[in-house]
C-alpha cells in the first residue's frame, strides 16, 4: 500500500513537471525558483488586461508598451544565473 502510494505521487509529480514548466522538485535551486515566480508573474500580468492597464497608468505608457516590456523581461527576469558550484 505504502510503496504503491509513493510510486503514485512520484509519477504524478513527473507528470506535472512534464506538463507545467516550473513545477518544483527536491533539488530545485533558489535562483530557478525565483525565475519561475517572476516569469509566472509576468505571464499573469500580460494575461490580465486590467492589470496591464493598471501598470500602464502608473508608468504613463501605452498598454501595448507595457505588454512588450513584460514579454522582454521574461528573458532573464532575475539577471544572469549564479555560478554553479559543482556538486
Amino acid at each position, binding site marked *: 500500500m505504502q510503496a504503491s502510494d509513493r510510486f503514485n505521487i512520484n509519477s504524478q509529480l513527473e507528470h506535472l513537471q512534464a506538463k507545467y514548466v516550473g513545477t518544483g522538485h527536491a533539488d530545485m535551486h533558489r535562483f530557478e525558483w525565483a525565475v519561475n515566480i517572476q516569469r509566472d508573474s509576468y505571464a499573469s500580468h500580460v494575461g490580465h488586461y486590467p492589470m496591464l*492597464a493598471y501598470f500602464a497608468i502608473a508608468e504613463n505608457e*501605452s498598454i501595448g*508598451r507595457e505588454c512588450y516590456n513584460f*514579454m522582454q523581461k521574461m528573458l532573464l527576469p532575475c539577471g544572469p544565473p549564479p555560478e554553479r558550484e559543482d556538486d
Partner: protein
Amino acid sequence: MFASIELDYSEADQDSTGQAAAEAQKHLTFYELDLGLNHVSRKWSDQVDNGANMLVTVPGGGDGPSGVLVCAENFVIYKNQGHPDVRAVIPRRGDLPAERGVLIVSAAMHKQKSMFFFLLQTEYGDVFKVTLDHDNDRVKELKIKYFDTIPVTSALCVLKSGFLFAASEFGNHALYQFQAIGDEPDVESSSATLMETDEGFQPIYFQPRRFKNLVRIDQVESLMPIMDMKVVNLFEEEAPQVFSLCGRGPRSSLRILRPGLGISEMAVSQLPGVPSAVWTVKKNINDEFDAYIVVSFANATLVLSIGETVEEVSDSGFLDTTPSLAVSLIGDDSLMQVHPSGIRHIREDGRINEWRTPGKRTIVKVGSNRLQVVIALSGGELIYFEVDMTGQLMEVEKHEMSGDVACLDIAPVPEGRQRSRFLAVGSYDNCIRILSLDPDDCMQVLSLQSVSSPPESLLFLEVQASIGGEDGADHPASLFLNAGLQNGVLFRTVVDMVTGQLSDARSRFLGLRAPKLFSVVVRGRHAMLCLSSRPWLGYIHQGHFLLTPLSYESLEYAASFSSDQCAEGVVAVAGDALRVFTIERLGETFNETAIPLRYTPRKFVLQPKRKLLVIIESDQGAFTAEEREAYKKECFDDAGMGENGKVEQMENGGDDEDKEDPLSDEQFGYPKAESGKWVSCIRVLDPRTANTTCLLELQDNEAAFSICMVNFHDKEYGTLLAVGTAKGLQFLPKRSLAAGYIHIYRFLEDGKSLELLHKTQVDGVPLALCQFQGRLLAGIGPMLRLYDLGKRRLLRKCENKLFPNTITSIHTYRDRIYVGDIQESFHYCKYRRDENQLYIFADDSVPRWLTASYHVDFDTMAGADKFGNIYFVRLPQDVSDEIEEDPTGGKIKWEQGKLNGAPNKMEEIVQFHVGDVVTCMQKASLIPGGGECLLYGTVMGSLGALLAFTSRDDVDFFSHLEMHMRQEHPPLCGRDHMAYRSAYFPVKDVIDGDLCEQFPTLPMDLQRKIADELDRTPGEILKKLEEVRNKII
C-alpha cells in the same frame, strides 16, 4: 497555418556569464494544422528582429503575396517562407526623446478586390498606412505613409462601409469615416530608401498634422480608467450624482454621472399663463407628423400649429374659451376635443358636431383610443361612445359607478379589430376595475384589483409580438396596465388578452408625486412616460422592459411629438413653459457631463458646504504646460522656416490656420519626456459651472499623490488643505525619490483659491493623509505619523514605524485608525493620548495588495486588491469589545504580538473576484429612500454595486438560482464560473448578480426547468430579479 514569435530562454537560464542571454534570438515560426491527422506540424522557422512584438497577416492566394508583417520596435518587416526580408523604419515624431523606441500597438487590414493595405498604430497614437508593392509572390517594396493621428487604441477595425472603429485603450471609443485613404505617392518611409549606418538604421522623422483622411463621426463613452469616485448629492437633486475622475493624461476628465437617461432639449418657450395639459394631434391617421400642439390652461385652450415654425392658429376648429380635458384624432381624419361641458367633434371638412353633457353635470375624466371614447361625469357616471362606419361619434352605453372616477383609460385598438375590449377605471376606493367594452357584455366588470392608494393615472401599454427580436427571443403580444398611485408608486400588471384578468403585479416607488402616465413612441415602439417628482421612461430595450429616470426637471404633463425636425420627441409643460426634447442614448444607465482636466487625475476631495472639488493631477514623463507652449511655438517656427523639407511640405498641404490653432493634445497626446520627469497640478473646480477657480502647477519635478481636508486644533486658519507630494520619483530600477513634502494650503475667496502656508519635507512619499483629532495623520512609506500645525512647518508629534511596506490609505473613526498597507491589507490602530503612542492592535492574516479601501463600520473595512478581488474584513465582536473595555486599550496584549504581527486578527467575512482592478469604492444609495449599497469603480471603467441581503429567504433564493445558472448556463469560453469568482481566494457570501440577471436570456423551457426546481414560476423569478435591481438603481 499560423505564425508565432518565439524566444528560447532555456540556455540563458543556464549560462551564468550572460552570453547566452545576450545572444538569445527571437524566431518567427510557421505552423500548419493538419486536420486529417489532427496534428500541428512546424513548417518553417527563421530569425527575426529581437524587438518583434506583433504579427499581422498578409493576404495570400490571389489577393496578395501571403506571409506576415512582423512589427518590431522601430521597424516593420515583411517575412515569408523563402522570401528575403523587406524592412522599413517606422517614422518617429520629431519631438521623441532618443531613448524611446516606436512600437506598433494595434493593427487593421483592409482588403478590396484590387488592393489591400494595413493601418498600424504606434504607441503614440500615429496611424500609418502600410502598403506592399508586389509582383505575384515577390514583395518589392514596403511603404509606410503617415495616415492620421487618433488616440491610442487597443484595437482597430475597418468596416466595409468606409468607417474605422477605434477602440481606445483609455477613454471614449470613436467611429471615424474615411475621407481619403492616403493615396498620394509621397511616403515617409520605404524599404527602398532604408539607410543603414554604423549605429544601425537611419531613423526617419515626421511631424504629426491634423486629420486629412479621417473625420470623427461618433463616440462611445468609456469611463476607463476610473481613478477616484465619490457619490454625493452636491447639486441637491432628487438622486445623488457620481463624481468620477476618469481618463489619463490629456484625455482626463471629471465626469458627473447621474442615474438616468440624458435628454437633449430642442426648444423652450414661455406661455402666457400656467398650462395644465398639452397634447399633440395629427390631422390624418396616415400623416407622418403631428399637426397641432394643443395647450390647455385653467380657462382657455391654445392651439399651436406645427410647421417650419410653431405658431398660434385660430382656424383649427377647437374651442378656445374653455379648458380641455382631452384632444385626439378620432376615426381616420377627424379631431376630438373634450372639454368639461361636452365633446366637440371636428370633421375633416370643417363640420363641427357638439355633444353636451346632460344638466349641470360636467365631464371629469376621459379615456379614448382612435375609435372609442369613454367619459366620466361628475358623480360617477360613465358614458361610452364609438365611432361608427360614417365617422360619427355615437353614444353606445351608460354605466353608473358607485362613486367618483379617479382615472380611466382604454386599451389601444388591436391590429385588425374594430374596438378594444378593455376599459380600466380607477376609483377613490383604492380599486382598479377592468370593464368590458364588447357589445355582448358591455360595461361588465371583468376583473378588479385593489391597490395601496387611490390611482391617479392609468395607462395600457401594448407590447407587440416580436419574433427573433433584438435579443433573439420570441415574445408574444402582451398588454400591460400601468397605474400611477397617489403615494408615488407605479403599479404594473399584465392583462390577459382574452379574459381581462390581471396577474403578475409589480410596483415601484417613483417619487414623491403621484405619477402621471403618458404614452410616447420610442424607436417606433410604444413606451410610457411617467411624470412624478422626476420624469421616468418605461421602454423596451433588447427584449427587457426598463424603467429609467430621465435627467430632467420635473414636468407637469407631456405628449409625444413628431415633426420634420424631430421625429421622436416629447412636448411637455412645466411651470409656464412649453418644452420640446428628445431622449438620447437609450439603454444607458447613467448620463454624463464631462469636464476636461489637464493631467491624469489621482484623487479629489469635496468641500461640501461650498460645493467645490479639489483635484490633484499628476503625470509621469510629460512636460509642464509652459514647456509645452514654448516647444509648440518653436516647432511651428521651425516649420515656417522650412528647415526640414518634409515638414514644410506637410504644413503646406494642411491648412494654414494650423499655426494659429495648434494640434489638440486630446487627439495627439502630450509629447513624451524622460521617464524621471513629473508634472502635476492642484485644481479647485466648481462642478456646477465647470469652471476651474484655481489651478496651481507644481514646480521642480514634484507630483501630488494624496490630498485631504484638515481642521487643526488651532482654529486660526479654519479648514486647511493638505497635499502629499514627491519630488523626482522614479520606479525603476528601484523606487527612489529626491524628497517628499506635505504642503498645507489655506483657502481664500470663499474656498475658490488656495494659498500655500508652508511645506514640510518628509523622507518618503506621503501616499495617505487623514485628519485625526485635530491633527494630521500621514502615511509615509512604512511610517504612520501624527503631525500638528506649526508656524513654519508641520510638527511631528508621534510615529509608528512598524508597518510592513507602504501605507496607502488611512481612515479614522472615533479613536480608531484604520491603516491600509500596499501589500499587507488592513491594520487597525489606536492612539493613546496620555502616553502619546500609536500602536497596532489588529491586522489581517492574508497579504492583500490594496488598491481601494472603505470604512464600513466600527469593526469592518471593505477593501479591494490589485488582483481584482473585493473583500470585507471584520474584527470579531468579542475582540472588539475586549479592546474597548480594556483600560490599556489592548496595549499590554499588543506588546506581546504574534509572529511579527498584531495580537488580534481580523476575519474575512466577504470575498469576491470581480476580475477587474477596483480603484475606488463608497457606500451610497443611488435612489432616494433606497437602501445603501457599496459602489465601486474599476480601472476598466465599470461601475459596480454590492447590495447587502436583508433576509435569509433572499439569500436562499439567490444562492439556489446562482447554482442553477452555473449549471445550466456555463460561460461561453467554458470556464467554471465558481472557479473564476474564486480565482485568488474562495468566494465567500457573495452571489453573482450578473449571472443571475442572465436568467431571462435562457430559452423558455430552461427557465421553466430552473423555476420548477426553485418552486416558483419564471415570472416570479423575473420579478425577484427586478426587485433587487430596483433597490440599487
